């Protein structure tokens, strides 16, 4: 069991460019979450998938952020027209349904927008 795998570990983009972050959840886990971590805001919930279906994207900035889960083995978080304020560590977590909200986190992707 390799755990939750996130790639890349560090991404640097210029202002206005697009960034795509990848997450491979633990095999057999039906729930996938994305969180954003910053010094100022701490850990912020972004979005949640259950059995690949989008359930809650209430934490996603509406205009430039999108997330998908095309199959059970990976999810992507896409940020269009990146801005300096998007700089953060983006954490993906998966959870087996029925084990109340015990999250297994990846190591995160550190996004730096110059």
């Amino acid at each position: 069991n390799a755990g939750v795998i996130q790639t890349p570990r560090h991404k640097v983009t210029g202002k206005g460019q697009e960034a795509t972050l990848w997450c491979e959840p633990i095999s057999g886990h039906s729930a996938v979450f994305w969180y954003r971590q910053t010094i100022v805001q701490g850990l912020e919930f972004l979005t949640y998938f259950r059995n690949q279906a989008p359930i809650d994207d209430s934490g996603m900035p509406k205009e430039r952020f999108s997330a998908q889960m095309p199959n059970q083995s990976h999810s992507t978080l896409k940020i269009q027209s990146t801005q300096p304020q998007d700089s953060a560590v983006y954490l993906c977590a998966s959870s087996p349904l029925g084990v109340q909200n015990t999250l297994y986190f990846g190591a995160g992707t550190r996004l730096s927008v110059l």
Partner: protein
Amino acid sequence: AQSVTQPDARVTVSEGASLQLRCKYSYSGTPYLFWYVQYPRQGLQLLLKYYSGDPVVQGVNGFEAEFSKSNSSFHLRKASVHWSDSAVYFCALSRTGGYKVVFGSGTRLLVSP
């Protein structure tokens, strides 16, 4: 809405000393409560969790936490810390039947030699 407060941003203790990290929560129902730890350049790892039963719950690496409904608290304790315990500790909560986990702001623990 639920929330979690960790009043201590930083805690420094000497190696071998005991430790308590404080966590207060706000939620009208019966919460699921968690403590996670984050080591540098890593994701969060679960230390322990509580829902019901004995208010003192044991976790990994000698950590334990005590739930108090009257005080709305879920403090983390360890009898004797090691330098390798230096990390950031997060208290978290989810509501019964919910899926969203809300995290506190974290407490950075530094264990000095």
